[in-house]
């Protein structure tokens, strides 16, 4: 009897096991497409109470399939691929900013012409400016051609401005994106920490929080896309998450991070806390964004600044030491504003370097035509802007009044009435053999922006000197003032062939800047392709161990169904047998 009664519980155990198995299969089939779902399967064990025959079946545990080495590799691959992706996106935008120029005054627009690339990048407008200067030598006296040169210079300055603004905008948008990424890291970290708490609670009581584990793994996967992560298993199913920027999750404690610009303009991520420890993330989207913000974009910005400044300084010095068609000047305003007009010039970060030397000012008496040359000694280590002004005023005997404009801190030169001045270094009149080939050995004219062609301190604010823009007759075409003298223009045109930046001409340097970005884009595109391929392979590998195979589950479902059917039949058989036995004992009355 006892063996038959126990047979009922044996059969029942089968049905229960079958039902549980069905539930697991149902869970698997429903989640076949859920990302991050690990397949679960019931562990059947036969139960026994020590007797000769066992007591049925039980599901000891529900196994959750994992492939730890592959999953660790996936986390690494995720962060690498996202870092590359992010940097690639930024590099492509930098490339567009550099090569999709605006309009040039020579009539070309931003569309592609039949010879290929975009018609008016900084490079082509630069060439165009020098070509216009060359053309001007045919008719140096022509105000129409001089105007064309000035407007081409203006278009070039505009393109520098646009590119610099584009890069600045890109960087500032990126700053916002970095903050968002950091918030996401913080949010994921706190979710992972709370899951750690829940999981350790369940496992502590002997349970199997398979779905909680799936959720946590999925969150860690998402986190690995934002930053590089390393997981360390702890007792009771807790996982610590570490990173290049410090520990993110330790047990049930999540770190919080914040991003802010430091005084140098670099974006730095720190851990929120009493010490604000630096968190130097190097991988994942955040790592890529930080790299782009702190290195990729500033590198190109500063290259553009150097290009703009070199062009400006070279042109300005030649422009200042020549004569325009409007002849010597009666007044001029410097375009460089110093921070402190009483401090030595060497401390004032002038856009064009000034060294110890001499400045020769030619002063012409307009009525008589006599001309004198006055030599002013310049030394930036001992003279401030005020000192230079005083030196000029006294050196010309007051015929040229120099002062520092109080509002703008720029140098102002005004000739006494009846006089005019220039820096072309001509011989005196009457001649005395005192003409000089380099009237400004100190470089002071470009240094304080006197009668230059360009003003500004970098690509973001380079523009044509307002005085020249308003009066193209100030464009210094000659050295002697004669209508057909184009020697100064020839000097300006010669700049295009001089190796000024790293052994390269200005145009070649721009091409280098754009090519370097292009090469970067190409390399990262290749890298991204191979990293994506690797990630795909790893995911496939992971899937083959932890994924749900629908066909497999359907077969399992059939066997679970049969288990239930068979044990139900068995119980029905046992029931019938018991009834027969009971009929013997208690015959019907």
């Amino acid at each position, binding site marked *: 009897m006892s063996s038959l009664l126990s047979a009922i519980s044996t059969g029942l155990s089968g049905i229960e096991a079958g039902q549980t198995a069905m539930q697991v299969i149902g869970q698997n089939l429903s989640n*076949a*497409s859920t*990302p991050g779902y690990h397949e679960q399967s019931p562990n059947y064990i036969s139960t026994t109470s020590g007797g000769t025959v066992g007591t049925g079946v039980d599901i000891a545990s529900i196994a959750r399939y994992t492939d730890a080495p592959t999953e660790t590799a996936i986390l690494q691959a995720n962060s690498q691929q996202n870092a590359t992706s992010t940097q690639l996106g930024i590099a*492509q935008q930098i*490339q567009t900013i550099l*090569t999709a120029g605006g309009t040039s005054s020579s009539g070309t627009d931003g569309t*592609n012409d*039949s*010879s*290929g*690339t*975009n018609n008016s990048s900084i*490079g*082509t407008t630069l*060439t165009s400016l*020098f*070509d216009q200067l*060359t*053309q001007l*030598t*045919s*008719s140096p*006296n022509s105000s129409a051609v001089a105007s064309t040169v000035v407007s081409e210079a203006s278009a070039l300055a505009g393109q520098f401005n646009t590119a610099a603004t584009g890069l600045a905008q890109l960087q500032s948008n990126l700053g916002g994106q970095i903050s968002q990424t950091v918030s996401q890291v913080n949010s994921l970290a706190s979710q992972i920490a709370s899951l750690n708490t829940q999981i350790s609670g369940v496992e502590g009581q002997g349970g199997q929080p398979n779905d909680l584990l799936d959720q946590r793994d999925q969150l860690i996967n998402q986190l690995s896309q934002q930053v590089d992560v390393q997981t360390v298993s702890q007792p009771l199913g807790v996982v610590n998450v570490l990173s290049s920027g410090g520990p993110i999750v330790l047990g049930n404690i999540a770190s919080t991070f914040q991003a802010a610009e430091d005084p140098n303009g670099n974006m730095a991520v720190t851990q929120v806390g009493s010490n604000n420890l630096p968190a130097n993330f190097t991988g994942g989207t955040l790592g890529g964004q930080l790299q782009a913000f702190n290195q990729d974009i500033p590198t190109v910005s500063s290259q553009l600044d150097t290009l703009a400044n070199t062009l400006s300084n070279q042109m300005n010095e030649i422009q200042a030491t020549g004569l325009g068609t409007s002849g010597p000047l009666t007044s001029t305003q410097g375009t460089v504003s110093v921070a402190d007009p009483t401090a030595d010039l060497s401390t004032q970060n002038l856009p064009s370097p000034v060294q110890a030397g001499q400045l020769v000012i030619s002063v012409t008496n307009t009525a008589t035509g006599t001309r004198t040359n006055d030599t002013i000694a310049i030394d930036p280590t001992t003279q401030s802007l005020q000192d230079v002004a005083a030196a000029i005023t006294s050196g010309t005997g007051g015929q040229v009044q120099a002062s520092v404009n109080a509002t703008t801190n720029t140098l102002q030169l005004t000739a006494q009435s009846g006089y005019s001045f220039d820096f072309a270094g001509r011989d005196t009149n009457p001649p005395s053999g005192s003409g000089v080939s380099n009237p400004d050995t100190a470089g002071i004219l470009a240094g304080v922006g006197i009668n230059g062609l360009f003003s500004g301190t970098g690509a973001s604010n380079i523009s044509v000197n307002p005085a020249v823009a308003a009066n193209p007759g100030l464009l210094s075409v*000659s050295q*002697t003032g*004669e*209508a*057909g*003298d*184009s*020697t100064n*223009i*020839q000097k300006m045109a*010669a700049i295009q062939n001089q190796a000024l930046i790293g052994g390269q001409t200005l*145009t*070649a340097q721009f*091409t280098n800047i*754009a090519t370097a*970005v*292009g*090469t970067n884009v*190409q390399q990262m*595109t290749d890298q991204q392709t191979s990293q*994506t391929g690797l990630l*795909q392979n790893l*995911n*496939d*590998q992971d*899937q*083959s*161990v932890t*994924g*749900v*195979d*629908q*066909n*497999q589950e*359907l*077969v399992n479902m*059939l066997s679970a169904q049969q288990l239930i059917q068979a044990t139900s039949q068995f119980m029905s058989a046992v029931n019938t047998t018991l009834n027969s036995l009971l009929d013997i004992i208690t015959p019907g009355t």
Partner: protein
Amino acid sequence: MYFRVTGQMQANNAIANMQQQSAALATVQGQLSSGIQLQVPSDNPVGYTTLAQAQTSSLQYATYNQTMTDATSTLSASTNALQNVNNILTQAQTIATQGADATTGAEGYQALATEVTSLISEMVTNANASQNGTYLFGGTANNAPPFQVASTDANGNPTAISYSGSSDPSQVLIGPGQTVNTQYAGSQVFQQTGADVFQALITLQNNLTNPTLTQSQNSMSQALNQSLSQISSAATGIQNVTAQQSSSMSMLSSLQTQVQNLQLAANTQAGNVSSTDYASAIVQMQEQETSLQASMEVSSQILQPSLLNFIQ
């Protein structure tokens, strides 16, 4: 490769492969429809450098070609003026020869002197020749007539011509650091030492009106023979300048041909690097289309059958 293949795996791979094929196909289609295979530096960084250099060179050559045309036009006008000058000098020689002839008398001398005076003013006009408002023989001072009558005698005949132009020639840039002289300094054309054109004519004029000389036919002949040799030296001086300018022009002409060829070569190079090679692009496109189609067909086939189709 793997022991188990799951539905998710198949789906992900099918999607990834189709996306890859589509992207590759889109790139080739873009190249074909725009005709350009190098739109941004990343398409071909090395090619981009070549393209940028070729474009810069092409623009430069075009500019030099233009300035050379301008210079040639100025020199051409200049040599024309010098041709006229030569003719005037020839006429002067005829007059001097006539004057030296024994049959010319006192009134003859006067008539010849008057002719010479008008030749002098013609000479000044030619020395002040201009083209489009720019004077050809003032050097860099090309915006005002370079020659003036400095002094006249009691009868208003010119006795000295002065030069108010510059001693530097105007220069035009025709190549990197390369210039050609266009407007020559008049003092170096008409007032060369030992070959002063004006001096020769003025001396001839003065000889023909000199009271001492007009009385003695012998002395006059002697003086006029001297004048002849002066005029001849002056003519040689002018011919030397003409030869210089002509050789400049022929140098410019051959240089222009060279520059135009270089410009063509640069444009061709730019086109080669940046234009789509239609033949290979079309073949590539067909290959990509085939791959994409194959990828799609395979995807549809492996995703369809499952055990569900067979379980009753």
